[in-house]
Structures are given as C-alpha cells and as structure tokens.
C-alpha cells in the first residue's frame, strides 16, 4: 500500500495565471504540430527542386520577387500591430488597443489582396496547379498558407468586435495573446515560404 496521499487540503481550482500558462503551453504544442504540417510541404518542395535539372523547370515562368516582398512587409507590420495592441491592453488603454487590433486586421487583409495579385500574375504567366510537381507544390504551399491567413483574419475580426465591446482588458487578454501567437506563426511560415519559394 502506498501512503503517498497525505490528507492535506489543497484547492482544486488553479489561479488564473496558472490556467493562462497552461493555455499558452497548449498553443505552443499546437503550433509545433502545425509546423510539421508545413514542414511536410516544404520537404515536398525541396525534393522536387533537388531533382530538377533547371530551376524553374522548363516551361514554368519566373516568379515575381517585389510583390511578395511587399506582402512580407505587410504581414510583418500586421504582427507588429498585434504586439502593440497587447502592450496597450496591458496598460489598460482599451481604446487604442482596439485600434491597433483593427490595424492588424486591415494589414492582414491587404496581404491577402497582394497574394491574390501574385497568384493572378503567376497564373497568367502559365503556371497551373495541375501542370506538374512545380505548379502543384507552389499552389499547395501558398494556398495552405493563405487558408491559415483567412482563419487568422476571421479570428482577428471577432477579437476587434470583442475589444470594441470592452470584453478585453489588462485582466483578460488571453484570447488575444493566443491568437497573436497563431498570427506570428503564420508570419514566420510566410517568411520561410518567401525565402525558399521566391528568393532562393
């Protein structure tokens, strides 16, 4: 028999700080898992590239560099706006925090517009999803990333509405913090994507 259990009374409900850290750890693990989702696609892209004799493959157009660079800047500013929003919220400046949150939302939407423009120009230049491995990998990677941007934008929109209604403050900013982690993750994936697909 074990006598590991002492009759000491410790309350079950953990304090909020404990619960918040638990949720944040959950988000970290979740994002690590999601990183593997993208890692699989990056691996696919890398293998296709390693096997190709010329790059881009014969018949495939050269990808633009400037427009995706603009997209990178836009998405980075969106992340920065979110950081700013959290800092303001911690100091109780709910009004300005909501504005910064709105800015993050607008910048994220601009990113999608730029991304769509890139797709259109690349598609017009003759790269189709079903023409071969290169096109398939390009559209899968950028498409999966864009889907994550859309999910983030929906969440940001909900957060903006909540912030305007005064749902968040210094004592309650966990949802914003968690979505900010997600949003930074989407930004980092984009940076890697930009470097591997457009630059190198």
């Amino acid at each position, binding site marked *: 028999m*074990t006598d*590991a259990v*002492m009759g000491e009374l410790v*309350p079950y409900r953990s304090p909020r700080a404990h619960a918040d850290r*638990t949720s944040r750890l959950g988000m970290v*693990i979740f994002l690590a898992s999601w990183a593997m989702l993208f890692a699989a696609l990056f691996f696919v892209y890398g293998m296709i590239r390693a096997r190709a004799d010329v790059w881009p493959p014969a018949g495939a157009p050269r990808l633009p560099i400037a427009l995706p660079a603009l997209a990178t800047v836009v998405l980075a500013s969106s992340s920065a706006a979110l950081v700013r929003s959290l800092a303001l919220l911690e100091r109780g400046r709910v009004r300005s925090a909501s504005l910064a949150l709105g800015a993050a939302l607008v910048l994220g939407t601009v990113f999608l517009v730029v991304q769509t423009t890139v797709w259109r120009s690349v598609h017009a230049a003759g790269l189709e999803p079903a023409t071969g*491995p290169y*096109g*398939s990998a390009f559209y899968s990677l950028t498409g999966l990333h864009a889907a994550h941007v859309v999910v983030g934008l929906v969440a940001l929109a909900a957060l903006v509405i909540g912030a305007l209604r005064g749902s968040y403050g210094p004592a309650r900013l966990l949802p914003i913090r968690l979505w900010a982690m997600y949003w930074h993750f989407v930004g980092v994936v984009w940076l890697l994507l930009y470097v591997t697909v457009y630059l190198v």
Partner: protein
Amino acid sequence: MSAESYLASPRGVRSWLLTTDHKRIAILYLVSVTLFFFLGSAFAVAIRLELLTPAGDAVQADTYGRLFTMHGVVMIFFFLIPAIPTVLGNFLVPMMIGARDLAFPRLNLLSWYVYVLGASISLWAIVHGGVDTGWTFYTPFSTTYSNGAVVTTGIGVFITGFSSILTGLNFIVTIHRMRAPGLGWYRLPLFIWAHYATSLMMVLGTPVIAMTLLLVVAERALGLGIFDPARGGDPILFQHLFWFYSHPAVYIMVLPAMGVISELVTAFAKKNIFGYRFVAWASIAIAVLGFFVWGHHMFVSGQSAYAGMVFSALSFLVAVPSAIKVFNWTATLYRGSVSFRTPMLYAFGFIGLFTIGGLTGLFLSALGLDVHVHDTYFVVAHFHYIMVGGTIMAFLGGLHYWWPKISGSSYPEGWARFSALVIFVGFNLTFFPQFLLGYLGMPRRYHAYPPELQVLNVMSSAGASILGVGYLIPMVYLFWSMRYGARVAANPWGASGLEWTTPSPPPTCNFETTPVVTQDPYTYSSEEAQVVG
C-alpha cells in the same frame, strides 16, 4: 462524505455524449475502439478463410485486395493507434498524476467526436465498395489506377489524425502542468513517461501523414501532380512522407503498451522497477530515434545505397532502448514475489512475443536479408508479433489490471486466465507459421499460393479461429462483470500508484483532496525502497 462514482451520476445518454470527464471519455473510446477491433477482425476472418486453400476461390482477387486493405486501415488507424492512449491513457493519466482531469477537458471530448467522424467516413467508404490500395496507399496506384474509394477513405483517415494530435497535445500539457504537489518528473509512473513520449510522436508525426493523404486526395480528385510519374511527379517521395509518419506510428502503438507492462511487472512482482531512469529515458530515446529510421521500409524502392546503409544502422540503433526495457522488466522479476494473475500472464505474453517481434525486426533492418524477405509473410508475421503480440496483449493486460478501477467490479479470474491462454496459443499458431511461409517465399497480398504451402496456411487459419474465440471471451465476461462481478475496494491488487488511492470506481472529481506526493513510484516494500531508491 464520499461523492458518487463517475459511472453513477449524472445519468442519461446525453450526459455521456456531452461529458468532459476524462474517465467517461475513456469509456466512450473503449466502446468505439472495441467496435472497430471486431470489425477489423471480421476482415481478418475473411482473409484467413480465403487462404485456407491454395486456389483463389472464396473471393475474387479484387475483393481480396479490399479485404486486407480494410483490415489494415481499420486495425491500424481506428484501433491500434488510439487503443491504449485514448482508453487507458485517458482514464489513467490524470489519475496517476493526482489531477482532476486533463488540461483541456472539452478538447478531449472534441477529439472523440473527431475520431468518430473520421472513422464513420471511412466506414462509409467500406460500405461503398472499399479500398484496394493496402493500408499504405502507395502511389501511383492509389492516385491513378485504383478503382476503390481512395478519396473517402483518405479523408476519413486524415480527419482521425487530428483526433490523435489533440489527444497528444492534451497529454503533454497535462503532464507538464497538472502534476500533484511533490510529483517530480522522476516520481512519475513509467506509464506516464511512455504516454509523454507517445504524445510527442503523435503531435509531431501525425501532421505529416495528414498532409501526405491530403496530397494524394488532391492528386486523385483535383489533378495535382506531385506523386504521379505520368505528370512528372515522384512516387518515392510519397513513400518517404508516408513512412516518416508510419514508422513512428509503430511506436505510437507500442510505446504506451510498454508503459502498461512497466506497471504490470512491478505490481505483480511486488518490486520496484529495475533501472527506473533507463526505462523512462528509453521511451524518449525510442520516440526521438523512431523519427530517423523510416527508410528501412524502402530498401528495395530505389533509394540510394548510402541512404539504405544509414537507415539500416539507425534501425539497429533503435532496438537498443527497446532491449533495455525488456532487460529491465526481466531484472525486475528477478527475486520478486511473482503472482500469476491474468494481467501478469498478459505481461509475460507481451515480453516474449514482443521480443520475437523485435528480434525479427533486426533481421528486416539488415539490408541483405530484407531484400530476400521483403513483402513476404515474414514481414507480416514480424509486425503482427509487435502489434498483436505486443500492443493487444498489453491492452488486454492493462484492461484487466485496471478493470476493477474502471468498473468497480472484479472480473472472473478463471475465465480470464483461460482466455489469456487461448489467446497466447491462438496467436502463436496463427503467426509463427507465417514466419516460415515468408522465409519460403510466400508474398503478401495475394489470394492464391502454391499447394506446397497449404499446411502452414491451414495452421495459420486454425490459429486465427482459436484467437478469435480468445478475444470474444473477455468481451463477454468483462461486460458480464459490470453487473454481476463482485464489488472491489480501492486497491484490490495492493498496488502502488495514485490511481489506487481513490475509490473504485472513482468519483467524478477523482480525488476528494489533491494528493501530495512524498515518495518515489513503485515503493512495494520499505527495505526494497531503501535498497533501490
């Protein structure tokens, strides 16, 4: 002031389907994985019936292809991978660390619904003709030529993967954040270490198979061209991605089983585990090394000779932590007061059969020998020794060991020992001849074979029917015992571990007060604790 048991209240189907109690979710999973186990077994019965005679007579070649595919898909994705973590893990992880529940109880319920959704979609695919690709979905057959329901099945497996990810995530966070005061990492039961290592693999490996299946589905449905050589794609790339998950998946199936065995061996030898830290870290080592050996499935697929050598060497290396565990369990038994109760019989079964499965795995990681026995029944026998002889033995052993805790009643010991024996005999009769068949060159996945191989095949089919009976008996008496079995006290085995300090079945809150841990695990006697601790 003892609270009501988790089984008794609240009542009603609704309270079960909307529960966030980890113990009830474990029961939901138990019911669902058992259903899929018997569904998968039904396919196995059909396979063994066909192989009773050399001629392909009972079913068409095409039907046979669907039978073994559905057997593999159902058993691997809907039974073996979830079985121990979602049933025993769900029930025990919070109890063993003195917590009220998992870190994210609603996520836990969600993971069950995701599992049910994914499994139902695949079930729908079975009803609508099934799949004939093998559980491995190899391209370009799966993307181009197969006329089975690849898309539906793929989506079903894809969805089920997220249930696995959510469960793993929940376990990792729970083990980090919810341990009772005083419960340091080296005081955790080895079951917890095993589940931690398993969760790491679930969280980091499953997304890769999810993405791979998504690409297969996209290739088949939307005409993407990543794997199909006709479109410039690379079918070997599929194999890399598939095995990057599916080799670790073997450890997702067997690591939790090893965790169960560590608990059984200590409880029934009444001894502390020999080399606690080695066993604990062996789990982590297996989880890490397991990610770097996938190429041993591709020795004959045309990967480079150097890649083959590296993967062969690494595969030998991953056997080391597994061997450490086997040696440590055996050393734990040494001079222990071993009692041969049913769970211990299963533990013995596991150790012996897993060792055979592991050693034949070394045959297969040897480059030259693998070329000879690749895609033969030798491979089939090898992984059934790991998955059936290993995982299912441990699952049944664990289920018997914790059944008094889960149900509050004891199972009939005589019947239980009898069925454990039937299962052991049936298992060996089914699968040992398959080693010989494989060595003699019988390829897997064919519904006809040369007449001189019939004797061994008949033995295998006979064994399968014994095995089937062996599995039905516990199903009946465990169900029976819930109503008619004798009620049990909190700790019927005299075992150590926090889960035994609370009533059987436990109240919904698990512990009336949060336990405070002041001891290392497996303290079965004080002298023992002094000697080893």
